[in-house]
């Protein structure tokens, strides 16, 4: 929680990419694979029907059992092409896949022509119906699958990638004890052998094969001094379409996150602050790839997180967890605590029930709840306890990066401080890195090392707590700080009050997004560039303090206090009336 370690953070540079992860296949291939799955399901369904017909001894049963085998073979063939052939990404794989689906289609069209054209006159009504249903598979599934594969033909260029194992990615093994002397010892231990430090070090579980690109060993991932930021975000955008009208057509776009760039250093608490709707939650979720970004890059510990193959993403997911905003809505009311916390463990492959329960109990203990609580349901807990369960859920996977989305906003002050202390202790003991989201400036000031101030989907100022709170360089930050209700009556002061409300993120103002409410612009006689030109994020010296305002040099004690003095007692509710 000390900020000394993070002063002088350099301006975000190009993030170093340590190792590429396997990309998810492009959208058309994913769709084709989905259609393959449907095809297999269809075949198996038919096989089951045929089997039933045989078993129940319906008329013509001998016929049915004979047809069973081709369907099973067909299903197996599709599985083989989908699982084995297509992932090789060879040109011949494309040929095989397209060829086989063409064959399926031809068979289907043949049946269709036979039935419809009356070529198979010996068929009775039932069989004819059955055949048509069967043949429909061609145009409905096999044809689009084939077209999808053809659309993605460039992807079949032979670039096959190796799957990465969990320990290579630097995730702590789940069995790794979270706390206590045992963990402290492993964490403090240097490399077990006298290997050069840039060589991979055996992670506690299993050995590492040395690939073309040296992966980061588990112990180094937790090392504060490892080079580079833990998280690098570059020009990240997330836009949501607005649908409306009878046809649900897109009638607009919410620019929830619109070009955000920042770094989070190892072991630091980076906070995002801003008003409701400015995009904090969306940013946190997009960073974790819980929603796919519209554009921009997220590099976590040297791994580019874009369209990552789910199998490769899984071990990374374990290192990045989220604590949700709402302690009441984020826990499934029908699940006992053991399942709520154990869910993530299960998805990480910890199938052993006992080991999982033990792990769940350990995490409950860490957040200060009783081990016996595992059988209880969320409604049996108070708000603060529920938030602790949310923390336990995140911790169960031994992450090293946690997005804490307003973890204390829904809580009473006395409970809020308990949860803040818990987060503080965990960070200290487990060397966690937090992306801490809040709209409470006092909490942020107390809890963070560096802060990013968000306004309408953009970061307008980034700096250490000292820089930001002592010497705010953006007019919005100045106004935010001035608006904090001060519990100490001795510090009461004249406020600088902003006019109007936050504009809609679906229609952000042109130029500087803050210009409709900016007091500085007003004091400077409404300079034109505020409206015409979007201010770039600039660095102030090499202190790491960054700001996006054309006129930041004009902010001084004098301008601020003059603006505060001239703040009318009753400010207008809206800036300009349309």
């Amino acid at each position, binding site marked *: 929680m000390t900020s000394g370690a993070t002063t002088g953070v350099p301006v975000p540079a190009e993030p170093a990419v340590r190792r590429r992860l396997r990309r998810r296949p492009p959208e058309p291939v994913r769709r084709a694979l989905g259609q393959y799955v449907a095809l297999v399901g269809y075949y198996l369904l038919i096989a089951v029907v045929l089997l039933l017909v045989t078993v129940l001894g319906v008329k013509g049963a001998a016929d049915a059992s004979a047809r069973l085998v081709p369907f099973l073979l067909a299903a197996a063939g599709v599985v083989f092409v989908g699982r084995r052939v297509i992932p090789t990404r060879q040109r011949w794989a494309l040929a095989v896949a397209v060829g086989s689906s063409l064959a399926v289609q031809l068979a289907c069209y043949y049946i269709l022509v036979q039935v419809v054209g009356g070529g198979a006159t010996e068929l009775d009504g039932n069989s004819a119906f059955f055949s048509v249903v069967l043949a429909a598979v061609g145009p409905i599934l096999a044809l689009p699958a084939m077209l999808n594969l053809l659309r993605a033909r460039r992807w079949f260029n032979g670039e096959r990638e190796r799957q990465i194992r969990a320990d290579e990615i630097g995730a702590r093994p789940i069995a790794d004890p979270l706390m206590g002397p045992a963990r402290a010892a492993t964490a403090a231990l240097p490399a077990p052998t006298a290997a050069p430090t840039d060589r991979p070090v055996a992670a506690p579980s299993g050995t590492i094969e040395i690939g073309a690109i040296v992966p980061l060993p588990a112990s180094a991932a937790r090392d504060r001094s490892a080079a580079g930021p833990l998280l690098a975000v570059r020009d990240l955008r997330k836009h949501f379409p607005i649908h409306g009208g009878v046809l649900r057509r897109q009638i607009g776009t919410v620019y929830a996150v619109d070009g955000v760039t920042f770094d989070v250093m190892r072991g630091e608490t980076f906070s995002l602050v801003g008003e409701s709707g400015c995009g904090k939650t969306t940013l946190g979720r997009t960073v974790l790839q819980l929603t796919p970004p519209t554009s921009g890059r997220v590099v976590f510990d040297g791994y580019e997180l874009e369209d990552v193959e789910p199998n490769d993403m899984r071990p990374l997911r374990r290192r990045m967890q989220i604590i949700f905003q709402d302690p009441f809505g984020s826990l499934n009311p029908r699940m006992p605590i053991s399942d709520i916390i154990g869910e993530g463990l299960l998805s990480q492959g910890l199938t052993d029930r006992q080991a999982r329960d033990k792990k769940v109990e350990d995490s409950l203990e860490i957040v200060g709840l009783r081990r016996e609580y595992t059988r209880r349901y969320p409604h049996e807990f108070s708000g603060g306890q529920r938030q602790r369960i949310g923390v336990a859920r995140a911790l169960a996977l031994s992450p090293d990066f946690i997005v804490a989305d307003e973890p204390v906003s829904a809580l*009473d002050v006395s*409970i809020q401080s308990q949860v*803040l202390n818990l987060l503080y202790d965990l960070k200290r003991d487990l060397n966690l890195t937090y992306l801490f989201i809040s709209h409470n400036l006092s909490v942020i000031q107390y809890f963070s090392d560096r802060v990013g101030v968000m306004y309408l989907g953009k970061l307008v100022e980034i700096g250490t707590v000292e820089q930001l*709170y002592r010497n705010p360089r953006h007019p919005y930050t100045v106004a935010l*700080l001035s608006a904090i209700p*001060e*519990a100490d009556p001795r510090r009461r002061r004249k406020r600088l009050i902003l006019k109007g409300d936050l504009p809609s993120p679906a229609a952000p103002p042109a130029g500087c997004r803050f210009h409709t409410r900016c007091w500085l612009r007003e004091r400077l006689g409404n300079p034109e560039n505020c409206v015409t030109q979007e201010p770039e994020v600039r660095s102030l010296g090499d202190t790491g303090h960054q700001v996006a305002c054309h006129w930041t040099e004009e902010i001084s004690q004098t301008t601020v206090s003059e603006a505060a003095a001239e703040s009318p007692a009753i400010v207008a509710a809206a800036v300009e009336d349309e």
Partner: protein
Amino acid sequence: MTAAAATTGASTPHSDGDRLLDVRNMQTRFHVMDGVVPAVDGVSFTLDRGRTLGIVGESGSGKSVTALTIMRLLDIPPAEIGAGSEAWFDGRDLLALSESEMRKVRGKDIAMIFQEPLTSLNPVFTVGAQIAEQVQTHLHVRAREAWSRVVEMLRLVGIPSPERRAKQYPHELSGGMRQRVMIAMALSCEPKLLIADEPTTALDVTVQAQILELLKTIQQRTGSALIMITHDLGVIAETVDDVIVMYAGQVVEQGSVADVLLEPRMPYTMGLIESIPTVEKRGGRLSAISGVVPSPFHLPPACRFEPRCPYAWDTCRDRMPDLSVTRDAERHARCHLHVAGAASRLEAAVSQHRQNMRVGRQLTDSV
């Protein structure tokens, strides 16, 4: 506890003729399936004309129920107002008025602003029509006059082009604007008392600053008295003269804002103030109040704060403390630390509090 003992004493230097509201031993219970919830349990306070009073406490401490009881807005049953409860407003006991008399008081003499303006505004009428209706019923004026009053009030609370806004429906306005409409409506009949129940909790910090400034300015301009209910000590410090702190349905501390916030004399208030994260506490843990608020069905028999209190001793488990004058400061506190013979304990608590407020590094003041 006597009414005299519970007045805000030295911090209200007005004579009795200035007294607007005098709540005495108010008790409100709810009969629910699991038993009886003593939501408000013997609350007494006074408020003079033109003064502002804050009610602060955690969720469920009985702040809203106190206000709703005074306004007589609770459904009876499940609510039950205890015998001996009195709420003297301008010489009349509100709790003894008939419903039709009360209807004349509500909106006219006492107005209330709620946390979520959307739920208290009627979605099917324009905001202007809703304010106008209230003006017409209470001030007995004609429609034309009522409408010009509406526009005047909307302009007063900072709503631009009020003529047009008055014809809009609540959902067409932003959260901050709706809260302004609520304030305009509340003030339209020039009430003697305005009760604001968490008026800014649902708003953003910059809009909250606007609304608090607006409330303060208008309160000063119109000279109405104000009761501000909130869980945010910062909002209290900003807006009111006197404050009462509630815990589990009781008043536990009472005095002027500066006294209570700077020199709290009841362990719960101390803990609340210590839990607020501030600059000074950076780089250290916050001193948190342990445990949770007791369930209303299992209240501790003596001091209700005893299970969470770091200074509790035997007496605290035997007897419920009274809300009485403290020995070393100008206010009332409900705590055994203030009885004769506990002086050294009180001293220890006070010095521990001072220490807790000064942990971590110091940062100089912001802009």
